[in-house]
Each structure stands twice: as C-alpha cells, then as structure tokens.
C-alpha cells in the first residue's frame, strides 16, 4: 500500500492504495465519484477522461499513485454553485448526448480542446475529440455543442437544419 494525498473536485483526500490501482477505480470505488465511468480496457474510448492538474487524461491510463500531490477535476466538480459549466450547458442545449455514458469524458475532453484552442474549426474539434467514442449521437450535435460553447455559433433556439 502506498499513501497518496490529492485534491479531487476541490476536496482533499488522503488514502492508502495498492500501487496497481488505476485512478479511475480510485475515483469510483474509494471516493464514490461514479460520474466518471469505464468504457473499455485499451484506453480507446475516453469515457473515463478527467482533468489532472488542468489537462485531460484518460483516468484508466493513470495509476492512482501518479496522482499523488495533484489536483483532479471530474465531471462532478464542473458545476459551481448549481451553475452548469458552459460546456455542460451547451451539451444540454444542443442535444449532444443520448444514453449519456460517454458524456462525462466527452465534456471533460471538449473543455480541454477549448483550453488549448478557444476558437477551433469544425475539423479541429473533430480531431480534438478523436480519442472519445460515442455510439449514440453520431458526433453531429457534440461538434455543434463545442462550437456553441466556444462562442462561435449562436445558441440555437432550435437546431434548425436538423429537423425542418
């Protein structure tokens, strides 16, 4: 067992963990942060994406011990004082989710894309989200949501063109 100290969604934690424990399992099983999910075992799907010291990581690809001394933000730490993060609001507004399983990871990655490049083109958004799989939406409305969150598309009153 190894002792780790870290901050998750603004709260500090101190735990003994097995050296082999993945960060995603630590978040889910020890801290109850079940908003972050596991979708594959080959780090392809990105469902487990969180921010580690401000950058997106696939938390199935990080050991809990590697997060020692770090600051982790999960989907559960995004909204402040009941106010949705603009990316969460854009996903809701643009119907960028259906079953919602990929959504936490997709939102965390989308925020990271805009942190790196605040006004990305459609192509840059698509490439930026390449490591996150979604089986429901066909990505159309996810791309739209990132465009809206980046302020490049007016908030759609309706998704015109999508249903005329």
């Amino acid at each position: 067992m190894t002792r780790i100290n870290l901050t998750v969604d603004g709260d500090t934690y101190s735990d003994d963990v097995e050296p082999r424990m993945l960060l995603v399992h630590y978040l889910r099983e020890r801290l109850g942060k079940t908003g972050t999910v596991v979708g594959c075992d080959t780090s392809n799907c990105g469902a487990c994406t969180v921010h580690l010291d401000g950058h997106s990581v696939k938390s199935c690809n990080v050991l809990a011990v590697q997060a020692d001394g770090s600051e982790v933000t999960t989907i559960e730490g995004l909204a402040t004082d009941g106010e949705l993060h603009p990316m969460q609001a854009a996903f809701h507004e643009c119907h960028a989710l259906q079953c919602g399983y990929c959504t936490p990871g997709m939102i965390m990655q989308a925020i990271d894309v805009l942190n790196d490049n605040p006004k990305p083109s459609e192509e840059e958004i698509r490439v930026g989200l390449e490591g996150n799989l979604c089986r429901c939406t066909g990505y159309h409305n996810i791309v739209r949501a990132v465009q809206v969150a980046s302020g490049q598309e007016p908030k759609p009153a309706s998704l015109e063109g999508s249903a005329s």
Partner: protein
Amino acid sequence: MTVTEDAPAATKEVGKDRRRKEDQRLITGRTKWTDNIQLTGMLHAAMVRSPFAHARITSIDTSEAKAAPNVVAVLTGADLGEGQGVCINAWPITPDQKAPNHLPMPSDRVAFAGEIVAVVIARSAAEARDAAELVDVDYDELPAALDLREAAEDKVLAHPDLGTNKSALWVFDSGQAGTGGDVEEAITKARSDGIVIEREFRQQRLIPAFMEPRSVVVDPTGEQVTMWSATQIPHILRFALAATTGVPESKIRVIAPDVGGGFGGKLQTTPEEWIIWAVARRLGKPVKYTETRSESLMSGHHGRDQWQKLTMAATKDGTLTGFKVELLADLGAYVAIVGGGVPVLGAFMFNAIYKIPAYHFACQTVLTNKTWTDAYRGAGRPEATFGVERMMDELAAELGMDPLELREKNWIKHEEFPFTTVAGLEYDSGNYEAATDKAKEIFGYDELRAEQQRRRDSNDPVQLGIGISTFTEMCGLAPSRVLGSLDYGAGGWEHASVRMLATGTVEVVTGASPHGQGHETAWSQIVADRLGVPFENVEVLHGDTQISHRGLDTYGSRSLVVGGEALIKAADKVVEKARPIAAHLLEASVDDLEFKDGTFNVKGTDKGMGITEVALATFAAHNLPDGVEPSLDSDATYDPVNFSFPHGTHLCAVEIDTETGGLKMRKYTCVDDIGNIVNPLIVAGQVHGGLVQGIAQALWEEAVHDDAGTLVSASFVDYLVPTAADTISFDVAHTTSPSLTNTLGTKGVGEAGTIASTPAVVNAVVDAIRHFGVTDVRMPCTPERIYKAIHARDGGAPTEGAAAAHFDAQDTADRTDGAS
C-alpha cells in the same frame, strides 16, 4: 388525416424541441449505472472463458483459485447443474427448427471462443480477476465450423449431436401466399425478353458496441430477489428468469437503472445474468459482475452476418417483374432469444417501396462455432434494404438509366396508399416523390451529377460517387396477432399508467424501458398536452418491475408508436374518470362539461375546474358522487393494429482517390418521413446516430475471426467504432405523411438512419468507380478493398514507380553500409 384534432391543446408541447429532462443527471455525473451499485457485503464475480471455438472440457482444476486471497467460491457448470436455468429462444422460426440446448455455463463442451466455463467469486473485483487466471481448464480441441458457407454444407458440425448445422429454412413465396405471382416464371420470362440481374452480397458480422459494458447485480436478500441489469428488456428478463429457474415471477424484481446504450445488443437474456442469479442465490450474498470491453465484444451477441443471393427480373424498360432472395444467415453457436427471427424480419422488407409482382424469400439459418448473433439496430431490415437498394443501382447501371428514375418508375405512388405489398403488408401512408424531391434539392443532386461527369471526362484521379437509398421499414413491433402467426413467443402490446398525485404533479409509468432515447422528455410532452398540465409537472417512471409491472420494453422502434399510444389511452381514461367528479363539484351535468387545456368548463358559463383540482378533491374524497371510486389513476395496454412504415430518401456523395483507394465523405443528405414529430431535437439525434452506425457498417466495422475461431477484433483497437474525426455533419430534413394507425400520427425513427444509410454509402462507392468495371465492393469498403476493386482488371500493378516520381533520387539513395 391530421389525427390531432380531438387532442386537447395538441399543438402546445408535441412538436416542440424541448431540451431533455434526462440530461441534468447525465451531464453532471449523477447517473445510476448498474456498475455504480455497491451493497453491504457485496461480492464480485469474474468469468473464466474458453479460448477455443469448439472443444470438449476434460477437466477443470479450481483448487489454486479457491486458495487465492479473499476468494469465496469457484463454480463450474457441473457445480451449478440444472439450477442455473437455460438461455431461451423466444422465436422458433419453423416447427422443426434445430437448436442446441443453451446452458449459461456448459460443463462438457464449449461451442465458441468466449463461452463461460467457470465463475470466480471474491471480495473484490480485482481479486476475482486474479483468481480467474488460476483456474486450470483442460480442453480437447474439436474441429470448428467457422465459415458460414462451409458450415451450410455440414462439412464440420458446430454441434455434432444435432447432425447438421442447418437450423431452419424459412420461406415466403408470393405465388403460394396469394400476394403475387410466381417468381420463377418471372425470371424465366425476363431471361428471354427482359433483363435479369444476379448478385451475391455479404453482410459482414458486426458488434453492437454500446458504450456501457454490460453489468449485473443480484441481491438475494429480502422477500423478492432483485436483479439490476444493464438491459433493454427488464420485463422480458423477469419473465425468462421465472420460466427457466423455477423462481415464481412474483418473487423476482428486475431493475434496469440508467442503461448506457443498447442498439439491440442489450435485447438479450444472457449467460452472465443467469450465472450471477444462480451464484448469488447459492451464496446468499449480493454479487456483481461487470464485463470488460474485450469480454463484451467477444461474448455479447453479434449482429448481421449473411450471404445474400439475389435475383432481380425486369422488362427492358426497367419495370420490375420479380425478385428472388436466398439468404444464408449465421446464428453463431446458439439460437439466441430472437435468433433466426432477425433475418426473417427482412422477408417483409426486401420488396421495400417497390411494386414487385412476384417475390420469393428463403432464409436458411446456420449454426457455427462463433459468438451467437441476434438483433442489432435495424435487425433484418438493414440487410433487406441493403440488398434491394444495391440491386436497384445494379439494374439501373445495366439499363443505363439514372438510378433515381428507375426507382421512381417502380415505387408506389403517393396516391396509391394504402397499398398492400407483395410480402402481404399494408403500408398506410407515404409519399416517396415528396421526400425524394426535397432530398435532391437539399443535396444539389443535379450539380453533383454534373461534377461527377466533369471528373469522369477529365480522368480526375479523385472520382465522385453518388449513392442513393430510398428506403422504407416496418417498425413499431408489433401487432400480437402477426407475432402469433409467426410463432413468436410473446405479444407486441405495451402498457402505460398515469397517476394523478394530490399535490398537482403527474406520475407516468411506461413499460417501454429506455436506454438513452429520451422517453422521459417525449412522454412528458404527450401527457402535458393530453391532460393540460405543465411539462415540468410530469414525472416518467420506468425500468423497475415493481413500479412498471407490465411492459415489453424497448426495441424495434416501438416505444412511441406502441408505448406512446398506450400512454394516450391511459391519459384519456384519467380525463373520463375525472369528468363525473368535476361535474358533481361544479354542480353541472356531465354532458355540459368540455375538457380543454387541463380544465373542465361548463359550456356557456365561466365556471370551470382544473384537472389537478379534481385530483386533489378525489384524493380528499370528502365529496364525490355516489358510487364513484376515489381515484383518477388509469392504466392502458395497447396492442398495435399495424406496423408503422417510415420511409425516406438518403443521398450520399463520396470522393475516392483512385490512386490510393482513400475515401472521403463529401455530403450526406437525408429526408425522412416519420409522420408527425413529437420532439424534433430527439428525432434529429436518433437520425444522426443511426446514420453513423449504418455508415460504419459500410466503411469500417467488421467482427473478424482467425482460422481458429478467435475473434481478433476483440477490442476498440481493432473493432473500428468511428470517431468524431472519421465522420461529417449531416443534412437532416423531413417530409410528413402522418401514420393512420396511431392517434398522434407518428412513425418510428430509432432505426431509420441505420437501415437507410449503409446502401447509400456503398452505392456511392460503387458509383465512383463503376467505370473501372466495378460492380461491387465488399463491406467494409476499406481503402484496400477499393484499391483492389479499381485495379482488379490491371492486376493491381505495382505503384513504386509512380511513388518514386515524388522523390528526388538523392533523397531515396541507399546509403547503408555496403550498398554501393
């Protein structure tokens, strides 16, 4: 028919692009997935699976695993015995169908790689997984039936005891059924004075690949045994547990909490569910099992997997005279819950939107030693639509006609509805001309055709292809009498309840169990209109058999057209129960009341009372008319009178680099007629996602087995679910021919995109390179296959010389030691 005339305030909510109620918990990480469940004292399971496609189990040594830290039990098929129940096939497609016994965990022989041979139970999931590695299983490998065509010849038997791999032959013939002529006559005649097109197409094996891996928790404590499962079908699951494990149905509670996608892949009763059920009851402790992605891809059921032999007959002017369909369908190792019924659903759809005078459909289902197959989004209809739409393009090419013109010549005209097809279905409504005109305009069909010609003429290395798919499908499964006539093991009705709470909100219970579709939002819209209550005040409950006690769940684009109709009938009963109470309280005659926008008004006066006020008065029950029960709550079970028949025109443009085989999708336009729309936002989402799944079949996805029967595409590294970077944005639009068979005039939309898009894409690929003599590219149309198709005639001449031209000699000179 605009069927909304009698609906109070029908324009208020239905039709509005309401943002979804479901989203709040999903975007903030407060979702309840099965794998999130932790119960006191809960144990964890890991499965030991066969690495062989076909083998006899000679011994299983569990001693080392049992001795591992915190292992509670290691159990084999022999340990569980008959108590483990059996996996069922609900649709024996013929009376003499051959089906092997399907135990959740066999003890003597495994029939596909991935089949479970032992289960390890430990105090943590990691310890269970570690110990599973220590279970020592000895196998005698047996020859495996792998290739579908060879399996159909019984060269190697998947199940030696059955004596054959051929499970069932299902035939429909329009001459015998009296719905049309004799197809052999039509083909013979066309061979002499018309035109006959013969093709064989491959529907590759696919994997549903829902994002949430399957997970199951069983808690045997308490009076009822509770199972949580990531399933599309909690009600059918409960029925099947009762039917096969000897536990009374009333002692079983099944809960499908938030479920992360299904696409047919969770329309199953699984060995994993049955094993955890048996183990938890045996140990008396709650047990959880969550599969890994590799396990999911290997042992969750697969989809499609057919060979299609198609013969189309026509006159020389392009009038269809006959269509003959001969299918080989791979069942995999077992006949799954729907099993052979999936390809059989295609029997009613190969004739599609066309007036075909003579039709024959024959489907031979075949057992092999691969993962079992069952429903995958579209289930039988994508295969049929692919077959007929590819054939229409081939016939058009042979005749030198524009493929849209050929289709229009043969399709059912809008004034011909209702139309009884050669397969015996009655299409209630549709307008193929309107959808096609709109699609052509949005797509810019004529301009793209002109560009295609310019590229042809200039011998452009990048060629443009235009693909068409004018599809229809049957959905809203299903009228129970039709299912009965096909020997399906259940009905096709759906159930709904509406409960008026004293404090003004309304609880709706639906038997259609959603897993991402947005029922909570759409059902709220329907009830808000029907009862005149605010959208926000409707709560939709589902997925727990103790709350939603009746239902047949979600698949086959049935929820809205069947479950939605049940909901309307239940809501209308609430109004009728409230009416005499309102009349009594308003001191008016029942006949003088009219119900509008949530209020009972006394005609010709300003006296009125809201339905929620009536609900409160009914709750208090202080002053009710004599003999009236103090409840407005109502139930309805609705059995559909017909399928619903959405249709649409999909147009796809692809650019193909003839020098590399590389493909780029340029544009995709679809105009779907799905009748009246309850929520255009949800509809657009269903279409987008459906399109990508169909496009993925055309271009990327395939479950590949090696010569030993091992699935080599058993992770997301190799099974190519498309990413955002692989796909484009779509033009989605609609025309509207309301359905005549339900109150709201709606048609299903869940599968339409997937059904329509695959042939549109492959037709575009073939259209781009047809001038190289190409008449087909097998799916998935990879750059390699496209390149080989282009160069099939020139033998795929080496291209090093062409590539060398791009480099200077000095840059490519070999400077390794001794080279000079």
